[in-house]
């Protein structure tokens, strides 16, 4: 069972990305997936959470996610108001949209286990590829490039299946760019 937590702000598509991942893993990846938001009313701009579970077996767990294999942070200002490393499993991966240094991000981690930190200036990629600072599919691509929980083609199928036609091609391109960038070991 892989457990993934998304940190975003209301309206930035964090939960859409959490759903895309569950869809890619289950319908297109042959595994089981589950996705849920931080329950309750959403206010634009307020910190929100999204969650995804991926498993080879049927997922019957309906409790919250407390430990994570991967945490994805869409907006690094969230680090000021929340502990993005909370519940990180040993060997887990934090993927964050930031222009800060790795040292600065790692200084937020107070655990003793080894964790991976992947930095990406997703906002710049978004402005180039999407002409808007919307980073959800880019961060999805980056996180999956880093962890390979699902394949790039499965993410492309999920985007085709869930997103509006006008958004598909550019989001697939932006997602794939981030996937390849991170998988190659480089950091944007």
């Amino acid at each position, binding site marked *: 069972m892989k457990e993934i937590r998304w940190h975003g702000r209301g309206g930035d598509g964090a939960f859409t990305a959490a759903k895309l991942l569950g869809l890619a893993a289950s319908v297109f990846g042959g595994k089981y997936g*589950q996705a849920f938001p931080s*329950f309750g009313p959403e206010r634009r701009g307020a910190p929100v959470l999204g969650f995804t579970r991926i498993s080879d077996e049927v997922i*019957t*767990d*309906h*409790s919250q996610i407390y430990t994570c294999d991967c945490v994805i942070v869409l907006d690094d200002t969230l680090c000021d108001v929340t502990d993005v490393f909370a519940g990180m499993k040993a060997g887990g991966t934090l993927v964050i949209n930031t222009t800060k240094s790795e040292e600065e991000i790692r200084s937020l981690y107070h655990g003793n286990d080894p964790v991976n930190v992947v930095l990406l200036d997703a906002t710049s990629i978004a402005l180039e590829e999407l002409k808007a600072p919307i980073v959800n599919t880019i961060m999805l691509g980056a996180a999956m490039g880093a962890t390979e929980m699902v394949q790039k083609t499965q993410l492309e199928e999920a985007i085709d299946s869930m997103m509006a036609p006008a958004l598909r091609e550019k989001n697939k391109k932006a997602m794939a760019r981030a996937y390849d960038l991170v998988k190659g070991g480089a950091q944007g």
Partner: protein
Amino acid sequence: MSKKAFLSANEAAAHGVRLCRPDVVAAYPITPQTTLVEKLADFLADGEADFRYMMVESEHSAMAAALGASMMGARTFTASSSQGLLYMCEMLSYVSGARHPVVMVDANRATATPWNIYGDQRDVFAMRDSGWIMLFAENGQEALDMVIQAYKLAEDPEVMTPVMVNLDGFTLTHTYDLVEIPEQEEVDAFLPPFKTSNKLDLEDPKTLCQTVGPDFHMEGRYLQQQAFEKAKEKIAAYDREYGEMTGRSYGGMIEEYRCEDAELVLVTTGSVSGTTRIVVDCLREEGKKVGMIRVRSYRPFPKEYFDSIKDRFAAMGVIDRSLSFGLEGTLYSEVKAELYGGSAKLVNFIVGLGGRDIPKDLIAMMYDKLDRMQKNEAEEEVQFLGMRW
């Protein structure tokens, strides 16, 4: 070929409704309504379904409209939640007493005050004696399957009773999961078009006797009770029939999980059952003889089943996401009444009110308490678990 999709339980239930080819959907679209009726509106707008969508001005009116439509022989659906269900309360008994087989979904959410939109089951249990059949689904797939079976059950000539399908608010309604959507032809074969003589018809004018004096009133109530007794066997029979068609069968009014040689069992409803399965599996690996009994049908209540297991387990705990103030958990009262005179030690765990999470370690703690009770250690009968203090 059925199709797999990644859906919330609300969306899954909406697919279930679509596949049942309803004639009328009546809904009040404002809070505390759910995304279920939004999805139905999408189906209608996209030409994937063909029904009359009645947007009304309140939940009370939604149920009144459902009653009117059903009185014309229409297959009718509505959905609500929380305060909305409470506001429907008056009309619920009109529908059930007049024996109109409306199906509704209730997203189980806390009742005010304090206002809280999150999951618990106090809304449905407040409607206990409304005369509706009340079923509880564990996940999105069961939500879809249960809606389809609910129409078959409600419209059965020997039942003719409305059915409320209950989905834990947010924990199910807003959680996305892999769901198999049956083919329309499959559902058509399982669920024939709704036909009834209990309707208004210009060709065959009659009164539906919605006002009855003391000379006949009791007989009507007796017949309702008979219908619920009939429903008991039909719930299991239709579940089997559906299972033969789709490969998915859930077990009738209750489902036992790893109970064969169990000594300690938890009684559950809805989504917490799935989490409990994981805890049962873990404890079984440690050699503990634990199991789970999931209640799928609250009305009719599986009275005979609980009566038959009075002495089967050493200790039993009932998980309630509701309570009746001044007494105990709602489900616990009824399970305890049926187990009266038996040897099992009983305890009631009240958890998950107002959306509080029910984590696995809390469920493990419940089994631990049952274990202590089996060893004759004292436990308070009614316990609130997972509290801030």
